[in-house]
């Protein structure tokens, strides 16, 4: 009667489709290049030559040499009088720049050079490869054969492979362990360039500060040291002789968050200083004004006397134009205003522009400008009216502001076709799997978990018809025939799934009269359902997303506490039945003592919240946690394997000791750096040994049979042993990668899961009617909650700035995206990966005889692939699908890019990580489970 077919294959299909849907959605939501479709050609590239009939001449460059002194992650308060005395005291102007999100390097460089806002998805490209730009300040300089020199971050070379006359870049900008070497090279280039003095623009990009922030945080003493170094480099420029006419800009590409990362939307990350230095600064700097980072590009273009990059939507920074003559200054304003007006015409249409306020301002400004020009041309300039000048300038500035604001708002463009397709695919998939898990009878009836060829064919036909029809009707545009045909596949699949879901929902809502109502095949206890519902629906609030960890801590602890108290009460009541009220307090205290462990776990879970404060005792903590981890791992292993894992743990401590993060023998520094690599090699050897010893079980059994005369192991236990070996080695690897004080989380996770499972067992068995499925549901939901809690204990959040990049470079001497990605993922998602693996292992190895359930049909462990995996997958997918739907509703929300978008990336990535873990687990099930 019981339906115990393995449903790994079906779940895998659903997960794959979900991932595809999510990818489609993301492509639609964050279009990679929105400017491609825009008709850029209609904007004249050349500089204007006349204004209302008066001829204008283009001004020459106003400075002989311009230096862009870019310090990565220089936030506003770093450039203060104490930390950078020279930079602070000698600055002509102290301005503040507002940086747009995402606050990571590559999009920011694009903003500085092209003057346009960058796309949110650039952040993903920031880590990997970068596309080349088509037009920028540097392209324009190259057209004019001006010499541009560059030193620093490699990202510039990816963006501008051929635009620099000379470049000396660091080899790898993502190798965060390099604090000093790269910067020293940049300063060396600076010295030689100062002697050469043939360039008109010199770009210096110092990365050390950013790296220190990533590795050691913003409060590290090295930060002050680094700032001093930057100060000295700047002083070198300022004090250099024979430099008559220069302008130095000191700025940062983005700020640094509390904790050292960046990528988010806090003021610490989005505000950077812009300090200007020139020989003859006329006025002392007044109060700090705030401009946008995109304003740099047009201003620099004007100062260098080149065309403004065609994509630029910034305004001019008036403080930077003070050295220009009156006529040239007015020309600059006029040029940028015209450029922006042309952009606005393309974007909003001529008619809208003509009726707008800013067009009137523009008209006024140009007329005033013309009036101003005539006396300037005639006389010596004294005749120029100050009133006219101020008035024209004011009009120019306010119209530029207005258009710039409008243009930056209108840059958002969604591809609704992809969004609809992705959304229907994800929603249909998650509903499909939820329905098929909830209603087993229905699954049987409709064959939900099998591929129905006929239905698929019909769907394909419908999809192609739909596709052709919408192509004919011009609802869908595709760039090539191939894409058009490819579109049929997701279309057909989503129609197929939607059809299934609709059919199933109909059956659930309207049961035919002659049969009984469809019954849920798994029990859904109210508290679990409620907590899960709350967790899902709070995704709609931006503050709940920002503080998502609070939700998880609260709900997770509530669930455990509630289950513990209910179990306690049931136990006391049960024990009390015969005694009839006598010795009640003795029974109560005895039962309470029985459950002491779960309360200890609760206290542990509370303590983990304050993990970041345990920094002072980290050596002891690391030692203790490694021992605890080893003690936990010993449960899964025989003697040789646990010896190997003990060695691995020891090596982890040695490695941290060599790094100077925990107390260790005092070693000379040359020895430390030489020992580092052998230590890691030893670690990998130990890990390999653990794996090999674990995998020995899967070797052909005959070999062992002959030698030792053992009985061949049952296949289930082979599978179990392999999964245990995987879990052990991945835990050991995580121990190497985790931050020092976070290693304690690994054994605590295992303990917490173990105790929670025991609690669930006790809860299940103390019920009046025992149900295995109830037990499974409880364990799955508890696992999800505990794993998410540990995910946040580790310091993760929904902001991109908390991704810890350091573990990606352990044992690496260069930047290898695959390995760094793998390590960072393993570190970030270690709680989720390990708890899923542990759940499977627990299900396979647990036997309920210990809690008093003797005979169980079907056996408990069978549920691993028929119930646990699909249900877990559906519970991972359902909130993600819900969140994607929410995103569409919130697409014009104020916080869409700062709060909701990072979360959607995190969510999709969580599903992806789960997908990979799931694929591997499924593979093992398929290969080694031969008893079914």
């Amino acid at each position, binding site marked *: 009667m019981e339906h115990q077919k393995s449903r790994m294959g079906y779940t895998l299909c659903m997960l794959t489709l979900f991932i595809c849907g999510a990818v489609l959605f993301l492509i639609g939501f964050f279009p990679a290049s929105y400017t491609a479709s825009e008709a850029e050609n209609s904007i004249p590239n050349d500089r204007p030559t006349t204004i209302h009939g008066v001829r204008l001449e283009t001004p020459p460059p106003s400075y002989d040499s311009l230096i862009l002194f870019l310090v990565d992650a220089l936030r506003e308060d770093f450039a203060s009088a104490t930390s950078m005395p020279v930079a602070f005291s000698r600055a002509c102007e102290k301005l503040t720049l507002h940086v747009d999100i995402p606050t990571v390097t590559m999009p920011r460089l694009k903003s500085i050079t092209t003057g346009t806002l960058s796309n949110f998805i650039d952040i993903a490209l920031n880590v990997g490869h970068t596309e080349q730009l088509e037009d920028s300040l540097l392209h324009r300089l190259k057209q004019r054969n001006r010499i541009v020199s560059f030193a620093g971050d490699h990202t510039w070379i990816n963006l501008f492979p051929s635009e620099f006359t000379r470049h000396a870049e660091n080899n790898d900008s993502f190798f965060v362990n390099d604090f000093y070497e790269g910067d020293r090279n940049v300063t060396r280039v600076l010295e030689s360039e100062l002697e050469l003095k043939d360039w008109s623009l010199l770009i210096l990009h110092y990365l050390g500060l950013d790296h220190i922030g990533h590795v050691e945080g913003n409060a590290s003493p090295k930060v002050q040291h680094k700032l001093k170094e930057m100060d000295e480099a700047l002083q070198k420029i300022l004090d250099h002789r024979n430099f008559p006419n220069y302008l130095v800009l000191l700025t940062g590409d983005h700020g640094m968050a509390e904790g050292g990362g960046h990528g988010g939307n806090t003021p610490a990350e989005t505000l950077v200083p812009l300090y200007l230095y020139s020989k003859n600064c006329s006025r002392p700097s007044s109060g700090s004004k705030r401009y946008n980072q995109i304003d740099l590009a047009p201003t620099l273009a004007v100062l260098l006397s080149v065309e403004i990059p065609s994509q630029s939507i910034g305004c001019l920074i008036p403080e930077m134009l003070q050295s220009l003559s009156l006529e040239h200054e007015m020309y600059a304003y006029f040029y940028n205003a015209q450029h922006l007006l042309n952009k606005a015409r393309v974007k909003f249409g001529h008619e809208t522009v003509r009726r707008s306020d800013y067009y009137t301002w523009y008209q006024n400004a140009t007329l005033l400008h013309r009036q101003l020009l005539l006396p300037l041309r005639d006389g010596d300039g004294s005749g120029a009216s100050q009133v006219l000048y101020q008035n024209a300038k004011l009009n120019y500035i306010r119209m530029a502001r207005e258009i710039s604001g409008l243009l930056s708002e209108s840059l958002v463009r969604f591809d609704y076709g992809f969004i609809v397709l992705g959304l229907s695919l994800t929603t249909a998939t998650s509903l499909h799997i939820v329905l098929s898990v909830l209603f087993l009878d229905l699954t049987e009836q409709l064959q939900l978990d099998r591929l129905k060829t006929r239905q698929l064919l019909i769907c394909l036909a419908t999809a192609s018809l739909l596709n052709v029809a919408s192509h004919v009707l011009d609802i869908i545009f595709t760039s090539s025939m191939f894409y058009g045909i490819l579109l049929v596949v997701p279309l057909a699949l989503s129609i197929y799934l939607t059809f299934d879901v609709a059919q199933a929902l109909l059956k659930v809502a309207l049961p035919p009269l002659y049969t009984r109502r469809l019954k849920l095949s798994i029990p859904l206890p109210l508290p679990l359902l409620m907590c899960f519902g709350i967790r899902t629906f709070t995704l709609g609030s931006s*503050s709940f997303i920002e503080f998502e960890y609070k939700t998880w801590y609260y709900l997770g*602890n509530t669930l455990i506490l509630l289950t513990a108290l209910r179990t306690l*009460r049931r136990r006391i009541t049960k024990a009390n039945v015969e005694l009839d009220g006598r010795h009640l307090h003795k029974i109560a205290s005895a039962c309470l003592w029985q459950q002491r462990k779960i309360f200890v776990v609760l206290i542990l879970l509370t303590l983990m919240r304050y993990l970041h404060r345990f920094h002072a005792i980290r050596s002891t903590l690391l030692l203790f946690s490694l021992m605890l981890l080893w003690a936990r791992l010993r449960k899964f292993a025989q003697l040789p394997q646990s010896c190997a894992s003990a060695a691995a743990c020891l090596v982890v401590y040695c490695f941290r000791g060599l790094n100077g993060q925990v107390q260790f023998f005092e070693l000379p520094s040359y020895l430390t750096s030489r020992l580092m690599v052998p230590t890691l090699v030893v670690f990998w050897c130990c890990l390999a040994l653990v794996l090999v010893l674990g995998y020995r079980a899967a070797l052909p059994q005959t070999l062992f049979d002959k030698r030792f005369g053992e009985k061949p192991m049952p296949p289930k236990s082979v599978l179990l042993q392999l999964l245990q070996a995987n879990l052990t080695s991945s835990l050991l690897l995580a121990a190497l990668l985790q931050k020092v004080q976070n290693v304690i989380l690994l054994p605590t996770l295992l303990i917490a899961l173990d105790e929670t499972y025991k609690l669930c067992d006790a809860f299940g068995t103390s019920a009046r009617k025992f149900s295995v499925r109830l037990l499974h549901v409880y364990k799955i939901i508890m696992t999800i909650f505990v794993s998410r809690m540990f995910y946040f204990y580790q310091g993760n959040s929904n902001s991109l700035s908390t991704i810890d990049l350091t573990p990606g470079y352990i044992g690496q001497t260069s930047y290898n995206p695959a390995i760094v990605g793998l390590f960072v993922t393993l570190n970030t998602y270690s709680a989720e990966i390990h708890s899923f693996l542990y759940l499977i292992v627990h299900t396979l190895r647990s036997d309920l005889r210990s809690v008093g359930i003797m005979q169980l049909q079907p056996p408990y462990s069978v549920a691993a692939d028929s119930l646990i995996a699909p249900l877990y997958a559906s519970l991972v997918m359902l909130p993600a699908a819900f969140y994607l739907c929410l995103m569409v509703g919130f697409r014009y929300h104020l916080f869409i890019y700062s709060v909701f978008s990072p979360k959607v990336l995190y969510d999709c990535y969580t599903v992806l990580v789960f997908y990979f873990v799931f694929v591997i687990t499924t593979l093992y099930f398929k290969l080694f489970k031969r008893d079914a």
Partner: protein
Amino acid sequence: MVSRFDQQKTKHQLFHVSLSLATILICMTYMQYRRNWAYLGNFWDSLVVPIVFIGELLKVVLARFYGRIEDGVLTIKQRQKKAAYFTARELAGGFTLQFLCTLLYAFICIILGAPVLGNYEETFVLSLLMTLLTVSPTVFLLGGGGALQVCFCEKPDFVTKCEDTALNLFKYNALGGILGAWAGSVVAPLDWGRDWQVYPIPNIIGALLGSAMGNIYACTHVLYATARVYMTKKRA
């Protein structure tokens, strides 16, 4: 199932519910009068705990008052229980039970996110309030041992009819209080920046409102049952 229109019981229930609601109304009025809610977490500065305490005591007195009528028809066990009410043992037991309960609530508060180091007074006040709303009435009514038995036995035989009525209503009160205090935390992560979002103000208010909700729910039940009886009577 109400088969007979039990006027005495209904009266007791309605009085009980109105007492609870009045207590909470007085609390709310007091809070409105004080304007600034920051004092709510202080033990010596807030009148909420004493008001709730008096309210619970009054409810017990009410139950005793209605229980007086049944005095003639008590079983031996019930008589014994009644006689032992004011002994030192029972009093000590009741006090210990309440104290332990306060500790348990404080533990739960900390597990669910109250600051571990600091805010002790606030946590103490919150857990005292929770104890007063949940455990204390039962303890006042039946003594320490009796309360334990009611909690953990299927159907203790020493409980009189009138006490049973009161216990039923206490249950609504307690459940509402717990759920309200639990749900009160919902405002904690919101970024409204109000001064009443600080722990434990939302939880205290949530507990009070929750118990009010529980009482209103109980009240509708009683009224519905009465109305049904009334209708059937009229029809007959």
